[in-house]
């Protein structure tokens, strides 16, 4: 008796981690005793009283007949048909097309290939892989041409990395919170395992003229999209990617080969890659000279932002979800940093007054999505949920107030599909109402 009472007391002390119901991150992870204590204390899944009692079990039709045929390339259940990307240009008009990842409907850290975000500026080219060529030239000792077949014989590496558009989260520059899902706000970021050849391996073969300080990467798409990248990145972790989550790249993600610059602005990760030219100075192509040079409050603009800085957002619960009564929930979200691995994520349920440290799902990989989770006992009252990430280089996700001081905000709410500024990484807040509805708020 007394032992059990001790355990219960200890469990309760461990469970409360921060205000408004946040529980200790260890409460649900391999600590059955603590959880048992917690349920004993009345915080388990609730509303049991409102539900009718369980009925005797029966067999449904699918258990009484021979099932469907097996497909060569399987497709998901028809019941999952609502889990799709949202499109900015479904009729493929002569402008760019965005497809956003539905983070609020996914879990884990790997974005399924069919749901990986894409932005294409001139449609998706229908590239015959046998005819595709990659040339590396300019300030090299010997210009070389590679085919997909020859590249496939080079030493390969696989790495998990997020890719994020420099304009992801741009609706957050709005002076008031747009009532949109995490897909609309942050859907231009995804994470996959990429396999290919390190660019440095190919540069060993071409040789590098020491005058080369940049390389220009160019695609085989109709706008021949091109970006300038410092040679530092080429010799660090740049890759020519051939595979995405184990299969060949999706057409929208750059089939048959793309540049991957882990942690750097999505647009620089040139898709349909066909040419790399080593040069002394950057080209100042339109995307670097204009589009991805964000205007600052003082009228100047940043150039060569490159880095996708440390960021996190809660995916459950988030706008569009409705909580069904008080009780125990697990807050879940994504954190990542272009600088390296995530160090920690703190979560608040009271608008930032108190914070609890979330559990990070292993493995925590550099420049990759990290899933964080934290148990939360919702008492049915108003709650404001925030997450804030730190990376292992010591960078911290700014509060919205800090961010607005440094980077400014728009004077009026923008269209949600607009990209009226870039490189937004501050905190996202979700307000939970007494009715269980989740709204986007600025805390």
């Amino acid at each position: 008796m007394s032992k059990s009472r001790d355990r219960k007391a200890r469990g309760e002390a461990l469970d409360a981690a921060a205000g408004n119901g946040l529980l200790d991150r260890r409460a649900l992870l391999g600590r059955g005793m603590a959880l048992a204590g917690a349920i004993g204390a009345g915080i388990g899944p609730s509303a049991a009283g409102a539900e009718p009692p369980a009925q005797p079990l029966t067999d449904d039709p699918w258990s009484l007949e021979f099932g469907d045929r097996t497909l060569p390339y399987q497709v998901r259940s028809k019941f999952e048909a609502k889990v799709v990307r949202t499109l900015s240009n479904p009729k493929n008009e002569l402008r760019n097309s965005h497809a956003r990842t539905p983070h609020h409907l996914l879990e884990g850290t790997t974005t399924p290939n069919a749901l990986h975000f894409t932005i294409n500026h001139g449609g998706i080219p229908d590239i015959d892989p046998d005819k595709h060529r990659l040339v590396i030239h300019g300030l090299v000792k010997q210009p070389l041409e590679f085919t997909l077949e020859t590249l496939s014989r080079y030493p390969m590496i696989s790495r998990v990395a997020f890719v994020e558009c420099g304009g992801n989260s741009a609706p957050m520059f709005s002076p008031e919170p747009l009532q949109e899902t995490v897909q609309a706000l942050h859907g231009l970021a995804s994470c996959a395992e990429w396999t290919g050849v390190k660019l440095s391996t190919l540069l060993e073969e071409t040789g590098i003229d020491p005058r080369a300080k940049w390389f220009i990467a160019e695609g085989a798409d109709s706008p021949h999209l091109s970006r300038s990248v410092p040679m530092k990145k080429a010799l660090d972790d740049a890759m020519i990617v051939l595979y995405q989550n184990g299969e060949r790249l999706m057409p929208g993600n750059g089939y048959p080969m793309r540049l991957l610059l882990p942690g750097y602005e999505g647009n620089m990760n040139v898709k349909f890659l066909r040419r790399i030219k080593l040069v002394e100075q950057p080209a100042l192509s339109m995307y670097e000279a204009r589009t991805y040079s964000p205007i600052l409050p003082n009228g100047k603009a940043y150039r060569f932002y490159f880095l996708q800085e440390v960021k996190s957002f809660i995916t459950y619960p988030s706008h569009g979800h409705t909580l069904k009564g008080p009780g125990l929930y697990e807050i879940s979200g994504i954190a990542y940093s272009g600088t390296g691995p995530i160090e920690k994520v703190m979560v608040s349920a009271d608008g930032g007054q108190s914070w609890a440290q979330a559990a990070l799902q292993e493995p925590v990989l550099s420049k990759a999505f990290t899933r964080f989770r934290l148990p939360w006992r919702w008492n049915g009252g108003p709650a404001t949920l925030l997450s804030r990430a730190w990376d292992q280089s010591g960078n911290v996700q700014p509060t919205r107030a800090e961010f607005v001081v440094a980077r400014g905000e728009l004077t009026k709410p923008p269209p949600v599909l607009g990209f009226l500024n870039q490189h937004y990484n501050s905190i996202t807040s979700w307000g939970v109402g007494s009715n269980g509805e989740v709204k986007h708020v600025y805390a």
Partner: protein
Amino acid sequence: MFTPKRAIFAASLWLAMMAGASWAETPNLGKPIDEAAIAPWDISILPDGTGLPKGSGTPAQGAPIFAEKCAACHGDNGKGGEAAALVSDRELAGISAAQKTIRNFWPYSTTIFDFIRRAMPAQMPHSLTDDEVYALTAYILAENKLIGANDTMDAQSLPKVKMPNRDNFIIRFPDRI
């Protein structure tokens, strides 16, 4: 037999393996190709004018090409339509990218030539001659009052066009360059 010579060899082999982050040997399957063979693909242009092709054009030559091939999307005289305005006297105000124009934001005139040549017209990129691209670039610059109505744009004159916003940029992370 263990000899000092063999020990040195073993040690150097071990060191080579430890340094194995860089592959000492690659399959050498890259096919040599000379710059002349790459030239049809090499459309890179640098802000100092490196890479600009031969040819030239004037605003007067550009106007009818613009009306025929560009105005449907970019509006009459480049004032804007389905696609962005290319001619505007709007000033930058606030942080909205919607305020950016060629005149108030683009730092280098070479970027105009480069983008037209690589990406425009959207439904038929790479269909313009270099003279036509120079002429369109001249037309857009002149309509924006960045060059005179009778100025000729070519590989020498285009990089010399001073764009008003050129010195208004801050390198975000200099240590990454």
